[in-house]
């Protein structure tokens, strides 16, 4: 091999690590990737992709069941095993794809567990059982996160599962209690409740999806309720008891009363634990805070030549953030100048209807003391949403009061997870509502509602009274 090539070692093969590895190779690095378990990491194996694959089955199931309204008379039966098979096939295809891409880019893969022995050397316990020692010019840490099991009394009950377990069920349970109403909890609630399971969500905060715009989260909560999901907020699980076939969950409600809820399964989705215990941060002298590696916006740690990206660094744990940071770390490691900016980062929740957001929520704008104005447009007045049965949704834009620059876009409705890109690009380009308004939005699309919400900021929406 060419000896002028910079040697890059990437630890962890999730969307942070494998993207960093490919980008580093593109820029001329000699790259080695260490992965202890599975290429594609959480995202491809037990995260984004498996959830969305199963949710797509749920969506088709729901649409087929409600087909009569559209003139499609159906008799529907679920074959959940088949859905699981398809999920597996997709996951395998994508993991195989990543393997292929790494090979094309001449990234060397070492299956094994890496840990620093000093700031320029790591040791790898390979899955074959050897121990290899590696030196490199630059390291990129991308070891991600794992499900967190909080110390609730009784959590060891056999009914308790984490997100990985929830995605591996071979049958739809009759009932499920979901502890934690964040993105993972709400998506799995959507999945199983759609497929006939009685789902109860217990959330400590005063609304589900606490990081999303509260007004829209509230609407989503009422849609979930209409579909039969019980949601308790400001509620706390204090004990879990294995009661044979069911677990009994004791919940302290906001009015101080307590309630016992039974569940065939109990999903614990209260958060994720940073996965850095095994990598020897101390041996390399890398600064961290409760396991979280501290980086600057170039993804540099305090140790020169060591970068970190993704879930192990970022309170916002998202695959696309991990990948974006992976590219940036690789660019900096190879002598370019790149910085990470979170401001165009979309958050998507794959509920039905979908929920997506970019930029500031109204709550954040208020908190930060920003002078803002709001434009809202209900999807009831959007033709395509009506056609798709998505009339309960809404688009909400937060803009600066003086210049009307777009600060936040929030959407609840069909295709929201894809439509949010317009908001992300607008925020990235520091666009004002004028540029969104000047852009012709195709008819009939749900996206027209984004333009109407921008018009509504100026109290001149066309398709609703202002």
């Amino acid at each position, binding site marked *: 091999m060419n000896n002028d090539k910079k040697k890059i070692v990437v630890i962890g093969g999730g969307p942070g690590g494998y993207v960093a590895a490919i980008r580093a190779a593109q820029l001329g690095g000699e790259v080695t990737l260490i992965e202890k378990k599975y290429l594609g990491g959480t995202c491809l194996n037990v995260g984004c992709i498996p959830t969305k694959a199963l949710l797509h089955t749920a969506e088709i199931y729901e649409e087929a069941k409600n087909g009569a309204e559209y003139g499609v008379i159906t008799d529907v039966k679920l074959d959940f095993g088949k859905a699981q098979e398809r999920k597996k096939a997709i996951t395998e295809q994508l993991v195989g794809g990543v393997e292929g891409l790494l090979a094309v880019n001449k990234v060397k893969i070492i299956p094994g567990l890496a840990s620093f022995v000093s700031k320029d050397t790591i040791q790898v316990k390979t899955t074959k059982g050897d121990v290899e020692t590696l030196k490199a010019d630059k390291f990129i840490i991308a070891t991600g996160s794992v499900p967190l099991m909080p110390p609730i009394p009784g959590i060891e009950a056999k009914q308790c599962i984490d997100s990985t377990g929830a995605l591996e069920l071979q049958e739809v349970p009759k009932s499920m209690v979901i502890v934690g109403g964040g993105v993972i909890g709400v998506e799995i609630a959507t999945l199983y409740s759609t497929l006939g399971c009685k789902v109860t969500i217990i959330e400590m905060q005063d609304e589900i999806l606490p990081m999303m715009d509260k007004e829209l989260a509230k609407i989503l909560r009422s849609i979930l309720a209409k579909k039969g999901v019980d949601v308790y907020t400001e509620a706390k699980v204090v004990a879990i008891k294995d009661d044979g076939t069911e677990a009994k969950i004791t919940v302290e409600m906001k009015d101080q009363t307590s309630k016992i809820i039974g569940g065939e399964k109990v999903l614990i989705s209260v958060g994720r634990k940073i996965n850095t215990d095994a990598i020897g941060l101390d041996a390399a002298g890398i600064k961290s805070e409760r396991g979280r590696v501290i980086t600057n916006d170039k993804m540099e740690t305090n140790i020169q030549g060591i970068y970190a990206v993704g879930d192990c660094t970022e309170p916002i744990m998202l695959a696309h953030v991990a990948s974006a940071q992976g590219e940036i770390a690789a660019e900096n490691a190879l002598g370019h100048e790149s910085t990470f900016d979170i401001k165009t980062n979309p958050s998507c929740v794959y509920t039905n209807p979908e929920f997506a957001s970019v930029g500031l929520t109204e709550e954040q704008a208020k908190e930060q003391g920003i002078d803002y104005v709001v434009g809202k447009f209900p999807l009831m007045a959007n033709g395509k949403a009506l056609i798709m049965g998505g009339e309960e949704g809404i688009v909400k834009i937060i803009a600066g009061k003086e*210049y009307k620059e777009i600060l936040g876009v929030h959407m609840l409705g069909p295709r929201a997870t894809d439509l949010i890109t317009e908001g992300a690009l607008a925020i990235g*380009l*520091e666009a*004002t509502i*004028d*540029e969104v*308004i*000047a852009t012709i939005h195709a008819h009939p699309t749900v996206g027209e509602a984004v333009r109407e919400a921008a018009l509504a900021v100026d109290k001149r929406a066309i398709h609703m009274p202002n």
Partner: protein
Amino acid sequence: QIQEKPKGGRIKASPLAKKIASKKGIDLAKITGTGHGGRIVQKDVLAYEENVVESQTQ
């Protein structure tokens, strides 16, 4: 859409306008933008360049 008067503050220019200006060594501060909110767009840079060339050849 209704045109608005340029607002003060920092220079706003489209990404394309910026790229062209930097490649041709044109100072954006000298250009009046005709886009939304006085944003400098490609056509403003090209018009400015033409003007400069014209006044030089006169």
